[in-house]
């Protein structure tokens, strides 16, 4: 009875195509990344250029972060840092978005590449150095900053963000949560679960996809058949924004809007920053094994640098010159050296740190293991 296959009476049902079904989803429309400044530093949206003091702050902030990223890479090379996930090239994406938050009320749920966003939201450089050294005191997140733990397992943080948003709303704090995920990470089911959860409840959460083109060696196209991941916003009926992630003015403008909407009870937004990982995946990675370092990355390094773009703009606006640059770099370097020295002066990790903070009060196994640890430490010191 089943599987009967016949020619159709009126001949049509075998020649159907999508267009003829009333219920067919419309073909994807064009989408262009939102931009305020062109790569040559010239405004494409004069009407959206903010106060130049703010633009200068953005330039200084990004320069400081890039300097830090450079320094971290050389610390790794000289074995004064562990394996580190660079954010270089993504300064506009992280600084421009995180600066849209209110540090007192708002939270960040970061992933491993969000050192820039975390520092923007109140992590200290010294803390960051020690974290990437694998020093327990570096793992101690500051009480003064609303930064949830750095997540390595992709994309745990997006669910924490949705949950923190639920919690903040329940407490009526007016706080907003911002979280980041790589374009590779969007293939994980949890990203869907989180966005759907938060949007069904209209909780105050901003989801940012940092599309830097690569997931280690896997290019964007392997992750999904769709051109822009932000198209998924339609599936949750939340605002979605495609943004030139190397244009900090565009990034910041959209982030502010999304944060304000979240604060106003309008629920989450999904934002895709089109940016680029100009550096290796981590300091342990060698991209030559999978991409031509003189092709695409070179273009982004030279032609699409988010910092150079703002510098060009400020120079055109006569707000910037070489003297200022020299002074700024000196200032940044001084700050960094001070942080590095402070980090260097922190005592080596205490072995006891291994057994702290597992349960609030130690179960007996932890107590027994602490005795074992003491013996081992004594042995090592004896040896």
């Amino acid at each position, binding site marked *: 009875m089943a599987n009967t296959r016949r020619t159709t009476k009126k001949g049509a049902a075998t020649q159907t195509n999508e267009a003829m079904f009333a219920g067919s989803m419309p073909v994807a429309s064009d989408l262009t990344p939102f931009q305020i400044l062109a790569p040559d530093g010239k405004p494409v949206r004069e009407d959206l250029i903010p106060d130049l003091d703010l633009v200068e702050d953005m330039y200084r902030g990004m320069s400081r972060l890039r300097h830090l990223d450079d320094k971290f890479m050389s610390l790794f090379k000289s074995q004064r840092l562990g394996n580190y996930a660079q954010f270089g090239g993504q300064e506009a994406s992280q600084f421009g978005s995180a600066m849209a938050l209110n540090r007192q009320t708002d939270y960040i749920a970061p992933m491993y590449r969000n050192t820039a966003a975390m520092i923007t939201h109140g992590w200290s450089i010294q803390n960051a150095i020690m974290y990437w050294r694998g020093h327990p005191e570096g793992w101690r997140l500051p009480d003064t900053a609303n930064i949830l*733990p750095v997540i390595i397992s992709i994309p745990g943080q997006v*669910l*924490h963000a949705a949950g923190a948003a639920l919690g903040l709303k329940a407490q009526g704090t007016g706080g907003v949560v911002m979280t980041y995920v790589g374009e590779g990470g969007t293939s994980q089911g949890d990203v869907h679960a989180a966005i759907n959860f938060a949007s069904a409840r209209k909780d105050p959460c901003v989801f940012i996809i940092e599309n830097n083109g690569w997931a280690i060696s896997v290019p964007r196209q392997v992750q999904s058949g769709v051109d822009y991941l932000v198209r998924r916003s339609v599936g949750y009926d939340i605002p979605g924004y495609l943004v030139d992630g190397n244009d900090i003015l565009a990034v910041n403008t959209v982030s502010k809007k999304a944060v304000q909407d979240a604060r106003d009870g309008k629920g989450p937004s999904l934002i895709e920053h089109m940016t680029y990982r100009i550096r290796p995946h981590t300091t342990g990675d060698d991209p030559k094994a999978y991409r031509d370092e003189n092709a695409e990355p070179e273009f982004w390094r030279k032609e699409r640098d988010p910092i150079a773009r703002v510098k060009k703009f400020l120079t055109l606006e006569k707000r910037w010159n070489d003297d200022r640059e020299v002074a700024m770099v000196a200032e940044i370097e001084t700050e960094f050296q001070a942080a590095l020295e402070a980090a260097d002066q922190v005592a080596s990790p205490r072995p006891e740190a291994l057994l702290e903070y597992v349960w609030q009060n130690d179960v007996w196994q932890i107590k027994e293991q602490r005795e074992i640890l003491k013996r081992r430490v004594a042995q090592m010191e004896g040896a």
Partner: protein
Amino acid sequence: MMTQVLEKATETKTMTLLQALTDAMDVMLAKDPKVVMYGEDVGRLGGVYRVTTGLQGKHGEHRVFDCPLTEAGIIGTAVGAAAVGMRPVVELQFGGFMMQGFDQIFSHVSRFRYRSRGRWSTPLVIRFPFGGGKSLLEQHADSPETYLMHTPGIKVAIPSNPYDAKGMLIAAIEDNDPVVFFESIYLYREPSARMDVPTGYYTVPLGQARVAREGSDVTLVTIGTMVHTCLAAAEQAAKAGIQCEVIDLRTVVPLDMETVVASVAKTGRVVVVHEANLTLGPGAEIAALIQEKCFYELEAPVLRVASFDTMPSPFNSLNHYSRPEAHHVAEAIKNVLSA
């Protein structure tokens, strides 16, 4: 039977395990505004087993609510909510569905405090019905305690009676560690397990085993539904003049080995009984610890009675061959005595 003494006399009411759990949540929703409860069907319906019955109506939709169907979402959002100051008590529909959200337990619930060096903790409770004995579909009868016991940083509570259930659930909600709370499907409405339970607030501390029956010949170490199975086996054995001590662990994390060791010192013979399948079930750790801590007291090897090493049987009429029954325990008691 209770080792707990209430500080002051309170009113009591006869309750099933299920009613005691509902009551615990009612007490905590009233006591602490940070407590929220969510999950699949917990709001309007009151849960597929009706454990949250009435709570939404009484405490409001912002305190007790349904959420999208996603265990990863339920657990993962509870982590974030707990971090920012809430006390989420979330329900999974069955223990067998915990795995859909297990990455959040393994990677985050258990590690938030360690990972942030105390800056963030995750004071949340994950509740679910577990275990067999009823004819249910596949994945409705799992006993996944191993996956949690091996994962540091979590507490694991498995009450065996209404009094403990209420006191332990209140303690779990107030605990600053994440607690996974196992609720026996078999006992939920079991009339023979009903008992008098104080109506107000009280706690039963997590980590203290209970001697459910005293005896000097054989120690039965067990948990949850199996406490009743062991008590029945002990009853039978008593008729043959064998005195079994039955230890209800109450929680497998923390694991109260002091109570176990004290009993073994007396009996020298142990049978561990649980519903989870044998290999690397909780009994493995308990047996390994007993042989280590009581080597010279043991007069026979520690025996284990557990479900077979298969998925929990979905074959209704065969279930009782695999899941421990009183006469399986009786056989082990005989064996441990004749070893």
